[in-house]
């Protein structure tokens, strides 16, 4: 995995606010992409890099909170930092409950904004790493033969080699070989490790 530059999306209908945010992020060495409305943001092609979204609440058309709902529904979990001129408590709690990183009132302080953006990017990086680990795991699982997969599921369900051998009509030796191969291909150090991996795979499948 190569080190990629994160992107910060900014959605605000006020051009001067957008520009100022880009200027500040630019000054601290971050790349920002600007959108004037939620629709522009939804229509844009976004690169597959760690990212976060600085989002105004009061926007023409679909507002910030609605965009947050929409993104959650479509499974695009971009961490969001809300900025608003007049946030009240119900609005804030709604946004935070729906997964927003921070809710800042304009005009906000630099450190608050940068801290929120940093936190949001960390969260996204973490999510991306977890995503990458999961897809690697799935890749490894896919490399197993059908028999190895069958044996693997029986092993993690707690059966002994003998029981598995009886179940599939194989010799205990053959089961041992399949089991060893599966552990090796899955890059599992121990049975416990293997159990954790299968749990993750199952979670993914359930989704």
């Amino acid at each position, binding site marked *: 995995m190569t080190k990629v530059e994160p992107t910060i999306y900014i959605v605000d209908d*006020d051009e*001067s*606010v957008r*520009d*100022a*945010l880009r*200027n*500040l992020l*630019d*000054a*601290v060495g971050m790349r920002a992409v600007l959108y004037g409305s939620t629709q522009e943001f939804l229509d844009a092609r976004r690169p597959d890099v760690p990212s976060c979204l600085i989002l105004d609440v*009061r926007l023409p058309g679909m507002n910030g909170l609605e965009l947050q709902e929409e993104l959650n529904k479509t499974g695009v979990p971009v961490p969001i930092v809300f*900025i608003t*001129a*007049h946030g009240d408590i119900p609005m804030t709690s709604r946004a935070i409950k729906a997964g927003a990183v921070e809710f800042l009132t*304009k*005009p*906000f*302080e*630099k450190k608050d*904004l940068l801290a929120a953006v940093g936190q949001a990017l960390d969260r996204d990086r973490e999510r991306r790493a977890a995503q990458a680990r999961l897809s690697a795991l799935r890749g490894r699982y896919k490399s197993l033969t059908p028999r190895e997969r069958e044996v693997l599921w029986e092993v993690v369900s707690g059966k002994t080699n003998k029981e598995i051998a009886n179940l599939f009509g194989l010799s205990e030796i053959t089961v041992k070989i399949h089991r060893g191969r599966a552990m090796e291909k899955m890059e599992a150090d121990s049975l416990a490790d293997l159990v954790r991996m299968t749990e993750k795979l199952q979670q993914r499948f359930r989704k």
Partner: protein
Amino acid sequence: MESLRPATESRVTAGQPGFAVRDTVRRLAMSLILVACALVLTLFLQRFFPYPFLFLFFAAVMASAWLGGTAAGLFAVLFSTIAVDYFFVPPFYSFSISPTAEAYFGGFVVCALAASWVSTAKKKDEEELTEARDHLERRVSERTAALQKSNIELQERERQLRLLTEVIPQQIWCATPVGSIDYCNQQLLDYAGRGLLDMQGERFSETLHPEDREGFHRSWQRALASGEQFEGQWRVRGADGEYQWFFTRGLPLRGADGRILRWYGTNTNIDGLHKAEQSLMKTQSDVAHLSRVLSMGELSTSIAHEISQPLTAVVTHGNACVEWLNASPPNVEKARTTAERIIQDGTRAGAVLSHIRALFKKGTPAKGCVDMNEVIHELTVFLKDEAIGRQVSLRAEVARDLPLVDGDRVQLQQVVLNLAMNGMDAMKDLARGPKELRIAVRREGASQILVSVEDSGIGLSAETAEKIFQPFFTTKPQGIGMGLSISRSIIESHAGRLWASPRPGGGALFQFTLPVRSENADDQS
């Protein structure tokens, strides 16, 4: 039959002695004549018969008894006996009686007495019968007359009632116990422009506004089921096709056994009332709207949004500028363009501010003719409920011939409302003493009117009397301290003056003046 009448009458008038004597004499005379006739005839008939023809005397006795009663009968018997004794019993033409004729004569007397008695008894029976029949007949005719009289009275009463239902300016209807309309008075028919046939039964509901029909049916059916008073308001279509609001009330008429016999109802036109209510509601909502607009919260939200955008840009650019200068080496070019942006956005914030200021200036006041009497009257209607709820006695005094003022009606109303609500708030915690709120308006000199609002609340000192007009000064836990400040600026923008003073006897007195509308002032001078 008619000939019998005198006998009856004689009994009725027997109390008069003169008449009784004359009557007796008359009967006596009658029996004498009858016997005389019998005598003459018998004497005449003696020529043709070998023996005296005495039967005619019996006839005379019977006739006398029949016509003249017992006494006349007995007289006739007496006269006949004398006549027979003298003329027909040997020795003839003498009152003495030969022994041989004694039995014959005796037989005659007995027969005569018997004839008299029979005739009298028969007569008596007949008379009693006649009397009973007469009595009955009289009773019948009396009763018939009484019945006829009450019948006529009843018809007259009904006619009067009917007339009454037609002349009173109210729509009246009747319905059967199952709720079918069967009578509408002329007023109702005239209003609906329909004949009675077109209103009967269920057709009445055709005149109701489609939106009101369901409500009407529901409450009508409920009343019919429960037998309780029926009431409601709905729009009824008139002959002109226009709907007007009516208040309907119906009451059941119950029989002695409690069963409902009929429903009687009236429709009262409340259209004017309804319209007034609606215009009042509109005024209320206008006032409410204004008070909302005037509330600082709403205003600050919109100002905050307008100002915070450029301000955010300024602060963010400022931060960026510092970052550019802190870099090593400092990026002076970026810092300069950033500073230029700061100037731009700062200027923009200033423009927003002056725009808001202009908005305020432009917004006050929307000039027009205002009648403060009307303003106060409308407010008291609006405040009445509030005052009742707070147990405050509200008094409004308007002035006759009050000149009009120039100004924004809604704003002026808001000022009076604000002062009145303040007054009520000041009396909220009053444990004892009367809670009185008085709103008055009067002419003050030639060119001004004076509106005063006084309360019997906690009052104020001479020092606080001026302080309370400063922005954000408040004595109320929930207050923001803008009401009086805004009120004063409204009055001042109308070229008037608003001030407060302690009220003699406790409480506070708020007064403001407004200049009289210029044409009016000219008229006066």
